[in-house]
Structures are given as structure tokens and as C-alpha cells.
């Protein structure tokens, strides 16, 4: 089944699941072909270009004339050119400041421009906070919907349904207003038939939810699938992400998914603030020459910080996460703005108060039990487990995703989602620890058992005569604990294997909660084991010093926390941000050292097995051009070895500064697919003038043909200030000075590649020109650099895709 044939077939027939839905939907302002450019007042500016010839002296205002809509924006899957963005931003800002002296309106405009950045951050924070509140409440409700419904009001989840009524101490879940499905349908909740009915309803609801999610994703927002993180890391701009539909799709699709193995945490990290606000400022900014005053990179970082802040209740951790994982290029201004966005998001979520207790996250715990130095040994063991699991997970998930990508398996995404959900639901129901939502599971595992708890995990053998209140000594495990242990072990095995298949499906799904769950289960198991060991053998040398009988020395909840941190670190390879998020989650400053120990150990172990974290691995799998800042380039090649054209290639495609016609340029543009062209003085002397982007060229020429008088195919295009005089009968000259970048980066051909790679990384360049004795010799793009690195590392250089 060859690719082309398949594609045509899928357009016309409805063979597989891929029925093409004819969608005429809500329109979205899109940068490509604007049939209604809001440029009425700028059109006057263009007519001034028509002087042609000697009269075409450019003035300051010509240069700073509002650019066309679409000039300077990006196409799908092009990387952001950070340097260009920064310089353009500075130019715009300077222009506004200069103009501010002219009139009060301009002054106000400049003031608003200065504040617009902060305003945008405010909006991002508000949006993140409110969407987080929406997701929390809705996701909880839908999770509980699988088990039953509230008679007092269908919009209540289980906990809120039983809020008002008196529940018993041992059975905190039962109250008259909440009816499970079997109770509703059959009238009673006991017996084999009721169990089967509950089971069936659970599976049916789970299937319905995931079907809803995948349909929304497929129908409206295909880019909303996955966690979105690998697409964001290289700083890529997706026009598809740049409408809010992926955001909405992710938000709406996240709730249904909560029942299955993945959770919606990952989505909170990115999606909704970034797409609409990212696109809106860029678009409006270019079209109207002054807007939010922010670069896409800043918006990305701020949105990431705000997302983590509400997902984990960790504002500082969010900022650090954004610094560590997201930003390619992170000036201090971004740090401050991200901090602000995270703060606003946290406030907003707090005001919505989704959990009814003024906490931001479901598993906020407060421990203050001290830990002993000897406990570092089990913590390091947990770190090793986290590293091993992380490496195992990455390998298997990549293998599965590769298989999905290459073979027929990938052709049936809806069916795949359906089958995986069905299997997950069927396996999850019997074990109560997999039946409950993952966040609740983590919360229960982190919880330290006191006398007020009556869950199975806390069924220790109690001594009623002691009146110590909450400070209970280590006790022998009762039968409930043993049951809980083996159920948790089964849950662990199931989660370890199922997450491999669910991460990467065509629904919004993240990785944070599942890996924290795996770690928490492992940690709790180890913690209870150590606790029982200390209780039964308190006279051993290692325990006798600090853990005498009757003392409360081991806290299994802490082990669960450390385990969660270790597993998350093993998978994502985060270090500082992980520790900060974890201790913000728990409020336990005493636990920084165990968390750091576990995070470092897991990172070392995982790095020893496989170099890449999960996101880097997915980036490589998809061939995104991400130049990692973490690796050193240590080969002795030079720029001339990497540049294009190589020895046997056709010569470099260049545009001359004032001797090519519109037709020539159009031919070049249509016959090649390069994203930019160098401009030289003339073909004989290949001295460099500047660099012009393909997109800008296309848009300017089209616009000129439509709007300017006298521009025909034989019009000469002139990129300089002073165009050569032409005989009066010739058509008027098209001046494209404004789209030319006069300061492209150049290196000489003898520059070592180490320096070139460094330049690309540090400045975030997309391409760099190579000169020899002042003459243009070739070009190096980011893709070439990546291919070269891959070649040097003996990887497959053809796996790097895109522009």
C-alpha cells in the first residue's frame, strides 16, 4: 500500500477509520492568504515607492513602514529564528518610543506597549488558572461518573455529593445521595450481578470518554494529540497550534482521558495559553506594527511556567521547569515575566478553589517527620529503581511509537484508542487501586497514616491505650495492609506496562502523573517494608540507635514521595525543577536532601543506560531539528566541510541586488524549496549584501502585483537604496529593501565547526552564510548542522526532517 495511493483512497472512500470529515468550521485568522488585509492606511505608503529610478531615495519612514501581513511570520514546522525576532522587536520598540513624542495618543500607545507585555502575562496567567480550575472540576466529575451518579445534582462528584451528609468512620464513601450504577439500575449494590453491572458501566463510560476525546482531536484539532512537549522544545512554530482549537481540543479531551492511564497534567503545561495568545500577538503585531511587544519565546516560557504552577501548585518549580526544559534562549526578562505569569495563574486557581480546601493540588501533603541519615540507603535504592524504570520505559515506548509510525498499526488511530482504552478499563476495574483515579491514588500513597485514617493501607494493629494523638509509633501491619501491598504490587505491574502503550496515542495525554504513580507505589511498598523491618527487628544494630520501640521513625508516605520524584526524574531527566516541584507539593523543606539524592541517582542510572530523556527521544523519533545545548561537539571539522553547496552540487542559488526581474525571482522561488536566498551584488562579484526569506519574497511580490501600478514580470527588483537608473520606457522598479535582512550571520570557511555549532546554539540561528575572502561561498542551515552532528555520532543523518 503505497503512500500516495492510500491518501487518495482515503479522500474518496470510507474504508478504514479515517473517514475524512468535511469540516467547514469556525474560521480563524490565518497568516497565509489574507483576503482582507487590514492595511488600508498603509497602502498609501506603498504608492510612494512608485517613483522608481533616481527618485527612489528611501527615507526613514519608508524603512519603517508597516510590513505586510504575513511578512516575517512562520510557516508550519519552521523553527523560530530568535535573533531576528529580537532585533525586530527592538526596532519596533524604538519606533514607538520615537513616535511617542509626537502626540498624546502616541504617548499612550508607547505606554501601553510597555505594559502590553505585562498585560499579556496577566492574561496568560488568568487563562491558565481558569482552565486548570475547569479541568480539575470536570475531570473529577467525569472520573466519578464512571462509578455512579449523584442524586442531589448530577454535577457533583462523589466527594461533593456526600459533603453534607454524615458518613461513617469506616465507610467514608457511602452516603444516601450517591448511587452507584448498579444501585441505580438494580436497586441494590451487592451481589455478583451488581458487580458485573458496575464493571460494564465502568468500561462503557471509559470507552465513551476516550472516543469523545479522539473524535474531538481528529475532527477539530489534530495537533492536540500527545503531550505537545516535544513539539515545543525546539521552539517550533506550528500554524496549526496557532489557533485555539488544539487548546480547546486538549482541554475538552483531557477530561475524558482522566479515567485511563494517562492524565491531563502534561496538557496543563502547554497548550491553552500558548496557542491563542502566541498567535494573536504575532499576527496582530506584524499586521499593525505594534502590539504585545513580546517574542514568541517569552510567551512560550511564560505559558509553560504558568501551566506547571497550576498543575502542581508549584509556581517556582514552574519557572524553573520553563528555564530547564523549555527555553532555548532565556534572558532574564523572560524569567521575571514567567514568574509573574505563574503567580497570576496560582492566584486565579486559588480563587476558583476547585478542591474546596484552598489547596491548589489534590495531593498536597504536610509532613514534618524527620528522617534519618541511614534512610538514604532506601532512598538511593528508589533512585536506582526510578532510573531503571525510566530507561526501560523510554526504550519500550520509543520502540512502540516507531512501530506505530512505520507499520499499519498507525493507520487506525481511533481503533487503537478504543482498543487500548478497553484493555485498560477491563484490567483496571478489579483492583481498587487502579480503579480510582491516578491523582487520588497518589494522594492516598503520599498520605501518612494517623489514627484518623481508616483506609486499607492504614490498617495497622493499634494499641488503644496510648493517647498520643496523631504521633503514632511504628506499628505492626494488620491484614488490611498486607492486602493493600499485594494489590499495589499488581497495580504497579499493570501501570508499568500499560503506560508504554498509552503515551503517544492520538489523544491528549501526558506522562507526569503516570510516572509519579509508578514511583509512589514503588516507594510506598519499600517504605512499608522498611517500617515493618524496623518494627520487628528493632534490636538490630542499624535500627537500635535511632528507632527504638515505640518511636515513630519511618514514614512510608515520604518513601512514596521520593519514589515519585525518582521515577519522574528517570523519565524526563529533570533535576532542579523536579526537586523544587516536589517540595512545593509537600511543603517539606526537610526533605530536599532525600529528593535530591533520589533525583540525582535516577538521572545517573538512567543516563548510563540511555542518553536521552523521553522528550528528547521523541524529538529524535520525529526528526525535529532541535539543537541540544547539553552536548559538546568535539570533532575537528570546519565550516567548509558542512556548508552547501558541496563540491559536486549545483552552485548556490542567489539573487542579485538590482539586476533580476520579477519573473526571474519567481522562477527561482518556484523551482527551489529553500526557505531563504542570499542577495549578492552581482553574479560576477559574489559579494554579500544580505539575506531574504522565501516567504517574505512571495508575499511582497504578490502584494506588489496586486496593489502597485506598473509592476509586471519584467519589472526589475531592487534591494538597495539607490536603484540604478533605467530607460524611461521600462516598467517601474519594485523596491524590496524593507524585506532584506542586511545583517545575516557569516563565518569564514575555515571556522571550526565547534565554533559554528556554538554560534547556532547560543544565538538560536536558523542559517549562517559562509564567505571566503569576502565572497559568498555557501550556506549552513541548522538542519545541516544537525545532520553533521548525527553523522559524526554515526546516527542516520536522513532522520532529520523539516526545514
Amino acid at each position: 500500500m503505497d503512500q500516495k495511493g492510500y491518501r487518495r483512497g482515503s479522500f474518496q472512500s470510507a474504508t478504514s477509520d479515517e473517514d475524512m470529515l468535511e469540516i467547514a468550521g469556525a474560521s480563524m485568522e490565518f497568516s497565509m492568504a489574507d483576503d482582507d488585509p487590514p492595511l488600508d492606511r498603509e497602502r498609501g505608503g506603498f504608492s510612494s515607492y512608485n517613483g522608481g529610478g533616481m527618485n527612489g531615495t528611501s527615507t526613514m519612514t519608508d524603512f519603517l513602514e508597516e510590513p505586510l501581513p504575513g511578512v516575517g511570520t512562520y510557516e508550519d514546522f519552521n523553527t523560530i529564528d530568535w535573533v531576528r525576532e529580537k532585533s525586530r522587536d527592538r526596532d519596533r520598540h524604538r519606533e514607538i518610543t520615537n513616535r511617542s513624542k509626537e502626540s498624546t495618543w502616541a504617548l499612550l500607545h508607547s505606554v501601553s506597549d510597555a505594559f502590553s507585555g505585562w498585560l499579556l502575562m496577566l492574561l496568560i496567567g488568568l487563562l491558565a488558572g481558569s482552565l486548570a480550575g475547569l479541568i480539575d472540576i470536570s475531570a473529577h466529575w467525569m472520573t466519578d461518573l464512571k462509578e455512579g451518579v449523584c442524586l442531589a445534582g448530577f454535577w457533583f462528584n462523589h466527594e461533593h455529593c456526600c459533603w453534607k451528609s454524615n458518613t461513617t468512620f469506616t465507610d467514608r464513601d457511602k452516603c444516601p445521595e450517591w448511587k452507584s450504577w448498579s444501585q441505580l439500575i438494580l436497586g441494590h449494590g451487592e451481589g455478583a450481578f451488581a458487580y458485573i453491572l458496575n464493571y460494564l458501566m465502568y468500561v462503557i463510560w471509559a470507552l465513551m470518554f476516550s472516543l469523545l476525546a479522539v473524535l474531538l482531536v481528529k475532527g477539530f484539532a489534530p495537533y492536540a494529540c500527545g503531550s505537545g512537549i516535544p513539539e515545543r522544545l525546539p521552539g517550533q512554530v506550528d500554524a496549526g497550534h496557532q489557533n485555539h482549537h488544539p487548546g480547546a481540543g486538549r482541554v475538552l479531551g483531557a477530561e475524558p482521558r482522566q479515567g485511563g492511564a494517562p492524565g491531563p497534567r502534561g496538557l496543563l503545561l502547554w497548550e491553552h495559553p500558548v496557542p491563542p495568545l502566541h498567535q494573536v500577538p504575532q499576527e496582530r503585531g506584524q499586521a499593525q506594527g505594534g502590539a504585545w511587544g513580546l517574542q514568541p519565546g517569552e510567551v512560550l516560557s511564560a505559558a509553560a511556567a504558568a501551566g506547571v504552577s497550576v498543575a502542581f501548585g508549584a509556581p517556582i518549580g514552574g519557572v524553573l521547569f520553563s528555564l530547564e526544559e523549555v527555553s532555548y534562549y532565556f534572558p532574564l526578562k523572560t524569567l521575571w515575566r514567567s514568574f509573574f505569569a505563574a503567580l497570576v495563574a496560582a492566584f486565579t486557581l486559588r480563587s476558583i478553589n476547585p478542591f474546596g480546601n484552598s489547596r491548589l493540588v489534590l495531593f498536597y501533603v504536610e509532613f514534618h517527620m524527620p528522617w534519618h541519615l541511614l534512610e538514604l540507603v532506601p532512598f538511593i535504592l528508589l533512585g536506582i529503581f526510578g532510573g531503571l524504570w525510566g530507561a526501560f520505559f523510554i526504550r519500550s515506548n520509543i520502540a512502540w511509537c516507531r512501530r506505530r509510525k512505520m507499520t499499519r498499526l498507525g493507520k487506525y488511530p481511533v481503533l487503537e484508542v478504543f482498543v487500548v482504552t478497553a484493555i485498560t478499563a477491563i484490567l483496571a476495574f478489579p483492583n481498587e487501586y487502579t480503579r480510582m483515579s491516578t491523582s487520588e491514588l497518589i494522594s492516598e500513597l503520599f498520605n501518612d497514616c494517623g489514627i484518623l485514617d481508616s483506609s486499607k493501607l492504614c490498617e495497622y494493629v493499634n494499641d488503644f491505650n496510648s493517647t498520643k494523638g496523631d504521633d503514632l509509633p511504628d506499628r505492626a501491619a494488620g491484614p488490611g495492609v498486607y492486602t493493600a501491598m499485594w494489590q499495589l504490587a499488581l497495580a504497579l505491574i499493570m501501570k508499568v506496562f500499560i503506560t508504554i502503550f498509552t503515551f503517544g496515542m492520538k489523544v491528549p495525554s501526558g506522562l507526569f502523573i503516570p510516572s509519579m504513580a509508578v514511583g509512589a507505589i514503588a516507594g510506598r511498598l519499600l517504605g512499608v517494608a522498611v517500617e515493618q523491618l524496623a518494627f520487628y527487628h528493632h534490636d538490630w544494630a542499624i535500627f537500635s540507635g535511632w528507632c527504638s520501640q515505640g518511636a515513630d521513625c519511618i514514614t512510608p508516605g515520604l518513601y512514596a514521595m521520593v519514589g515519585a520524584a525518582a521515577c519522574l526524574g528517570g523519565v524526563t531527566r529533570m533535576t532542579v525543577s523536579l526537586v523544587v516541584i516536589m517540595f512545593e507539593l509537600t511543603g517539606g523543606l526537610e526533605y530536599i536532601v532525600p529528593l535530591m539524592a533520589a533525583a540525582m541517582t535516577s538521572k545517573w542510572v538512567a543516563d548510563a543506560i540511555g542518553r536521552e530523556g523521553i522528550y528528547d527521544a521523541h524529538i529524535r523519533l520525529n526528526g525535529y531539528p532541535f539543537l541540544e545545548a547539553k552536548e559538546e561537539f568535539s570533532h575537528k571539522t570546519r565550516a567548509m566541510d558542512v556548508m552547501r553547496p558541496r563540491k559536486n552540487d549545483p552552485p548556490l542559488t542567489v539573487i542579485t541586488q538590482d539586476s533580476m526581474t520579477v519573473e526571474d525571482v519567481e522562477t527561482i522561488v518556484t523551482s527551489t524549496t529553500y526557505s531563504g536566498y542570499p542577495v549578492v551584488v552581482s553574479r560576477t562579484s559574489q559579494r554579500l549584501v544580505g539575506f531574504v526569506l522565501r516567504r517574505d519574497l512571495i508575499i511582497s511580490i504578490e502584494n506588489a502585483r496586486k496593489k502597485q501600478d506598473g509592476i509586471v514580470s519584467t519589472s526589475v527588483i531592487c534591494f538597495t537604496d539607490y536603484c540604478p537608473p533605467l530607460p524611461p520606457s521600462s516598467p517601474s522598479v519594485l523596491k524590496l529593501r524593507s524585506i532584506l535582512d542586511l545583517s545575516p550571520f557569516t563565518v569564514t570557511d575555515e571556522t571550526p565547526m565547534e565554533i559554528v555549532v556554538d554560534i547556532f546554539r547560543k544565538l538560536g540561528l536558523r542559517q549562517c552564510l559562509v564567505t571566503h575572502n569576502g565572497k559568498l561561498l555557501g550556506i549552513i542551515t541548522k538542519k545541516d548542522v544537525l545532520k553533521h552532528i548525527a553523522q559524526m555520532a554515526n546516527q542516520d543523518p536522513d532522520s532529520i526532517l523539516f526545514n
Partner: protein
Amino acid sequence: LFPQAPRMFAQSSQNCGNPVLLLLLLGCVLCPPAQASKSSEDIRCKCICPPYRNISGHIYNKNVSQKDCNCLHVVEPMPVPGNDVEAYCLLCECKYEERSTTTIKVIIIIYLSVVGALLLYMAFLVLVDPLIRKPDPYTQPLHNEEDSEDTHSLATGPTLAGARANTVLERVEGAQQRWKRQVQEQRKTVFDRHKMLS
């Protein structure tokens, strides 16, 4: 505050999914919790008392204000005689909690209506739209399209821009076609070429 607001609203009149609209929607979400007065349904004091001697554990709920939220006010009837009350109350833990039922109701209803609307819309598009819409000659070129996105932009740009009149309906049509094209492209990228995290 900013000069582009009027333009944004003008353009948003033809965009159904504008972020500004989304923000307004969220504003409505935020308003109810801000304005809702505390009905008696929404506060409670929850006291959890563990098993004590031969008395089993119990949970007490009462809606009292925060200053009255302690064992003496909430635990009624007191299961232990007078001299034991203090010891018993030391074991009990009382917490004051409040929630907003209005927020929950509003959020769930908003969520359900949005999802419902999207599903209805999708059903409409799948079932009804192909019947009422004649096969558009514009969409044919899409079927024969090759992989390159650049020729795509060159080809559709001029044809699309030149042909449309400026009435609102036609503008909406144009925008719809663009969106359709966009989603189709995305779908191709994700589902056919598996370029996105699969």
C-alpha cells in the same frame, strides 16, 4: 487601552473560535465564585473522631462558622461523660471547609454545553453538510496535491484572494474553506505522515 482592540473585535465577528471570546467565557466562569454569597450549603465543619475505648470512630458534620469550628460545638451528642470530654476532644480533629456549589454547577454545565455543541457540530458536518453543499470545484485541487507545502501556498494564495467578493457571507465562506484546508493538512501531517509524536 490598545489600538488594535477595535480591529480585533471587527475580525472576531467572523471568527467563532477567537481567543477573546474564550476569555469572555472564562470571565463568566470566574464571576460566579466572586459574587456568590455563602449559602448555608457551602460551609461545614468536619470533625473526625477516632475510636476511643469502647466507642467506635465517628465523623460529625455541622455548618457552623469558622470560629465555632471545634470539637465542643460540633460533636453532638457527646459520646463520653463530662470528665472524659477533654481527652476525647484531644483526639478529634476538626477542619473548616468551604466550597462553592455554584462554581461547580456552572463549570460542569459550561463544559457539557461546549462538548455537546462540538459534537452536534461534528454530526452536522458529517451528515448534513455534504448534502446541502454542492461539490466545490475549489476543493478538487486539494485531492491532487503533492507533498510540498510551498507550492500549496503559492497556488492557493492568489486564486483565493482574487476571487472573493467582500460580502460577509462570502468572507465567512472563504474563512471556512481556509479552516477546512488547515484541519485537513494537520490531519494529513498527524495521521498519515505520523510526524507528531507517534
